[in-house]
């Protein structure tokens, strides 16, 4: 019972790195901040987690249980503060404190898992699997909660979970680790950073594309993106026998190839994301597990080196956010202009009456302006409400939706491609790793 509870705690703490992705438009509206500013709700958490993971690991190796308790209480209190934040500044501040709690929970949990499972090897497997599941399911879970209960519920629901897990774990003891931690594995952690930077596109952008771009409900999008963690778990459970460096390199090729496939989707629609997600998920299972294994292997102190892997992964997430967010914003702006022009051509060439064309064109442009003001994509359906239910109008609505889909999908293509290159760059440190292990 204690092992699954620790898995829940790790998954929840790491899910927070991406869980608010789909809540950002609501947060933006409520606090009346800009798109670049609202991204700090994500960036602050990942930045603080990257910076504090190693110091937290040093605390956790000396007093694992106490570190866990402190982490869980800080995390719960900060989640409560996030969920009831009266201003944007308080929300970002509370997210930083939440990340500090998460750093203690995740690093201490690795030591506590060694105690409950009585095997550092099995502890590491559960730790990495829970982390991958949490990070991959975070955006979808956050989207469903935002849709059903509002964005604040994402944080408020974490409070009882953190407390219940803490109560379930009470009495758990782990021995402090006396051996010196030693130096971190540089190439493995650098490769982790680069792969994680690329994975930002898979974890954040796919959900944004499905929900905000293609108008899927968060619940349906959540179901679609479970393909990726499912593939990751399947591959890490049934890993083919091969050298660990070969396994990592194969994983990086799959992640990078899957991201490139997302950049070249020939149509809009969730089904087109499935084959790329399978590639990314399989690559994620091979690369993250293999890299974390190398970073920890042969090192007496798993907790500190686990802390280094968390620091590398979340520094990678910050790098990915910093690089990809402006690329997406610029591409969306450019595509918006192209889509407006293409939409105007569709309306002018349509078979509806000339005066209807002028009225419709005005309504389309008003919807484009409204959507831009609230950081959303225009809804074609809203423009056609109350219009005649005739073939010409229906085909016009469908042609406009097609142009919008084309614009959105092509805007996401550039960040997906950049993410693929970022992940592919991980092959450089991996090549050095191969030389050292050869």
């Amino acid at each position: 019972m204690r092992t699954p509870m620790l898995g829940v705690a790790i998954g929840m703490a790491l899910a927070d790195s991406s869980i608010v992705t789909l809540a950002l438009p609501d947060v933006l509206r409520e606090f009346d901040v800009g798109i670049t500013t609202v991204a700090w709700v994500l960036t602050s958490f990942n930045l603080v987690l990257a910076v504090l993971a190693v110091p937290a690991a040093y605390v956790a190796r000396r007093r694992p249980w106490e570190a866990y308790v402190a982490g869980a209480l800080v995390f719960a209190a900060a989640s409560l503060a996030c969920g009831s934040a009266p201003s944007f500044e308080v929300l970002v501040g509370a997210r930083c404190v939440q990340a500090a709690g998460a750093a203690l929970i995740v690093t201490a949990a690795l030591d506590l898992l060694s105690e409950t499972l009585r095997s550092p090897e099995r502890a590491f497997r559960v730790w990495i699997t829970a982390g991958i599941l949490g990070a991959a399911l975070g955006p979808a879970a956050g989207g469903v909660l935002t849709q059903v209960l509002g964005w604040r519920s994402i944080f408020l629901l974490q409070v009882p979970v953190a407390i219940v897990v803490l109560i379930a774990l009470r009495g758990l003891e782990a021995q402090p680790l006396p051996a010196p931690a030693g130096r971190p594995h540089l190439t493995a952690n650098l490769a982790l950073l680069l792969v994680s930077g690329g994975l930002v596109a898979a974890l954040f952008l796919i959900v944004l594309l499905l929900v905000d771009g293609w108008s899927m409900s968060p619940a349906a999008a959540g179901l679609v993106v479970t393909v990726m963690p499912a593939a990751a778990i399947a591959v890490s459970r049934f890993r083919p026998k091969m050298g660990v460096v070969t396994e990592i390199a194969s994983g990086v090729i799959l992640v990078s190839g899957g991201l490139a496939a997302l950049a070249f989707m020939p149509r809009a629609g969730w089904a087109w994301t499935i084959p790329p997600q399978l590639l990314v998920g399989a690559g994620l299972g091979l690369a993250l597990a293999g890299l974390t294994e190398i970073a920890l292997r042969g090192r007496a102190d798993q907790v500190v080196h686990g802390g280094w892997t968390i620091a590398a992964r979340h520094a990678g997430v910050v790098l990915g956010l910093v690089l990809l967010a402006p690329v997406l914003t610029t591409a969306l702006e450019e595509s918006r202009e192209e889509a407006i022009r293409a939409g105007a051509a569709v309306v002018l060439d349509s078979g509806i009456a000339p005066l209807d064309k002028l009225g419709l064109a005005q309504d389309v442009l008003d919807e484009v302006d409204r959507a831009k003001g609230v950081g959303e994509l225009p809804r074609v359906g809203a423009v056609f409400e109350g219009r005649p239910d005739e073939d010409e109008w229906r085909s016009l609505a469908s042609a406009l939706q097609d142009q919008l889909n084309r614009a959105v999908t092509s805007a996401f293509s550039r960040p997906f491609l950049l993410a693929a290159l970022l992940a592919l760059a991980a092959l450089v440190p991996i090549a050095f790793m191969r030389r050292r292990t050869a």
Partner: protein
Amino acid sequence: MRRALPLLVALGLVAAVVLPYLALGGASFEPTPVADPCQVRDWRDPGDVDEVLEQIALSALDGAACVLGVSREDLVLAVRSEESLDAFAEEHGISRDDAEQAVRDGLLRAVEDAEGAGAIGGIVATLARRTVESVPPWLVIETLESLSRFLP
């Protein structure tokens, strides 16, 4: 070779997804580029007078856009409000004289296109050409502006 096999399998899997996506047009799934306004469009067989007038108007737009070096769609989007029209004029460095000349050239081309497509007869075309040449373009623009107030 045996060690490289997993890498080759990974590359094969990636190729099995990326290549079909590219073959299906994945590299060009983007908004349809707008047509060149300087190219004559196919003239639809008009069913009634409204459609003839609409096509003449669209052809005139094409002609004016061609003269100004912009797309027909850019021109339509520019006249949606005074602000957008000012921004458009500033962006393209267009003066009132340029606009008048563009409208005159656009209308002349529309008459030519309509005559070429057989939508209007030779006598009507000649009369229309004379009208465009003799009526000051500002009057055409102001008449259009006045008419636009009656639009929904």
